[in-house]
């Protein structure tokens, strides 16, 4: 199976498992939640880095794969979008080598666009510190980000992004995965 597709499937399943564990008898299991969070994070990182790799190789075949100077915000990336789909298959090897513990090719500023819906609390210091002082196990009464809101967040934060919103970005990620 394509690595990106596998990563996506793993992420979606992890979310499903975490949501269903909320209704489990005995409450949320910290160990299980932690493992699911770790799997989801690594799958998400691999997914995004693999997508970036395929996008880069689609953009320019002469460019170095490990270049750290690419600009995903560039509007020229929108013209590369149709190329990305086909080049994704052929450059799988390049993707795989990029997965194995490679540092994230994106610069931190661009990274915010990619992890937008999953960590909105990073932008809000107030919410984060509140979570830290919350006692354990208090049921999370915070509103979940719905699909429409996520789309809105993405569109507002990345005006120049030419990438089509794929289904993964629309999956609402719980803000505080392990905290409860």
């Amino acid at each position, binding site marked *: 199976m394509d690595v990106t597709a*596998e990563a996506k499937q793993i992420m979606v399943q992890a979310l499903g498992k975490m949501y269903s564990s909320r209704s489990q008898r005995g409450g949320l299991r910290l160990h299980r939640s932690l493992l699911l969070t770790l799997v989801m994070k690594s799958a998400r990182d691999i997914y995004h880095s693999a997508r970036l790799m395929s996008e880069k190789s689609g953009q320019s075949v002469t460019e170095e794969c490990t270049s750290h100077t690419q600009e995903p915000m560039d509007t020229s990336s929108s013209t590369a979008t149709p190329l990305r789909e086909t080049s994704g298959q052929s450059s799988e090897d390049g993707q795989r080598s990029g997965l*194995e513990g490679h540092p994230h090719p994106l610069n931190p500023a661009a990274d915010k666009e990619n992890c937008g819906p999953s960590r909105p609390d990073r932008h809000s210091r107030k919410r984060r510190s509140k979570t830290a002082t919350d006692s354990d196990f208090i049921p999370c009464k915070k509103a979940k980000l719905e699909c429409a809101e996520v789309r809105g967040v993405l569109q507002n934060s990345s005006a120049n992004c030419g990438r089509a919103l794929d289904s993964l970005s629309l999956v609402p990620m719980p803000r505080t995965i392990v905290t409860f």
Partner: protein
Amino acid sequence: MDGHGDGQSRWCLSQVKGAVDDDVAEADIISAVEFNHSGELLATGDRGGRIVIFQQEQENKSLPQCRAEYNVYSTFQSHEPEFDYLKSLEIEEKINKIRWLPQKNAAHFLLSTNDKTIKLWKISERDKRPEGYNLKEEDGRYRHPSSLTTLRVPVFQPMDLMVEASPRRVYANAHTYHINSISVNSDNETYLSADDLRVNLWHLDYTDRSFNIVDIKPANMEELTEVITASEFHPLQCNTFVYGSSKGSVRLCDMRASALCDQHSKLFEEPEDPSTRSFFSEIISSISDVKFSHSGRYMMTRDYLTLKIWDLHMESHPVETYQVHGYLRSKLCSLYENDCIFDKFECCWRGDDSEVMTGSYNNFFRMFEREGQRDVTLEASWENGSPGCPLKSWRVSTGSRRKRNEIGVDCLDFSRKILYTSWHPQENIVALATVNNLYLFQEKLN
């Protein structure tokens, strides 16, 4: 690698306990199995919060080939479901662990725990009762003192054996997270209980206080990367205990070093093999059980695919590693999908530490001989073996060719799993739990 060329093992089925129908009630699923220190008693706990204790009958001298059978000795409800109103959470009554105390008098004591509360149970026998009271009739009615003309001394008369289980202590409200382990200290006065983030030390006599000795909760829960998964006291050194983590490492702590043992004395960790890295590396490296050898020299850890034996003097890597079901490495994605990858298998040592055992799927269990480096896969099934008949060993193949007693990895039944096992401390009898049955196997006597 099979242990024996002819496919026959030394082990044979002795007994099966529990209903044998396919319909399994959730409450009947066994969740703990433990022999006591003499091996005379075997306790099982289930998801319904009940404990059933079996007792080994006196040996039948006329049948020396047959070791004594285990029969029900006592059944009682240990834990009930509770509700935490503050957190709007139900607390399951499922028994997570049972640990026996060494026997000091005629009564037997055990500790049992669910997710939040530990209880000390006294199991005692009553086979006599006093008769001949002066102020009471035999049926219990009181006699008027003025009707007494003589005095007599009540005497004990034999009665039918009654086994009573009474809760002597309830250790509650000390754990915010779910308790995964309890372990009695060799001093026979204290014990530890561990949840996901903390280890507490208790004195058996005091229920209103416990001392926190390990706390790995980060200041900000979002920075949490590791939880405690198992913990045990050293069998001989009362100051030493270990705890395993979800990252695959085990920390040994010395309580003499400081009151709070957040700083470990030893860290047992094997560097990860980068060639086997996958999406699921974190999940499969999580320690599901840690057990000291009886000698106290070694320690065994179980993670999803392997059993590792560590020498306490060497932290860098285990001295022995056994593949329990390496053929599952290529199936991790499906096992993640069906949740089996989160299963927590226990492991146990033989009484003389020469062999170790753990469970697997398809009701298989694995035994590893340490000296001879031999291992065997056996099946817990009442259909495929009759009591006394030696079990045939199995092989799991990845290929398509099938020989007898060989099964393809795709044919394994992942709903039938053996998570809980216990080895008799002196004899070669093992007890293991399938979903709702308790199996007892014993070694053939030649």
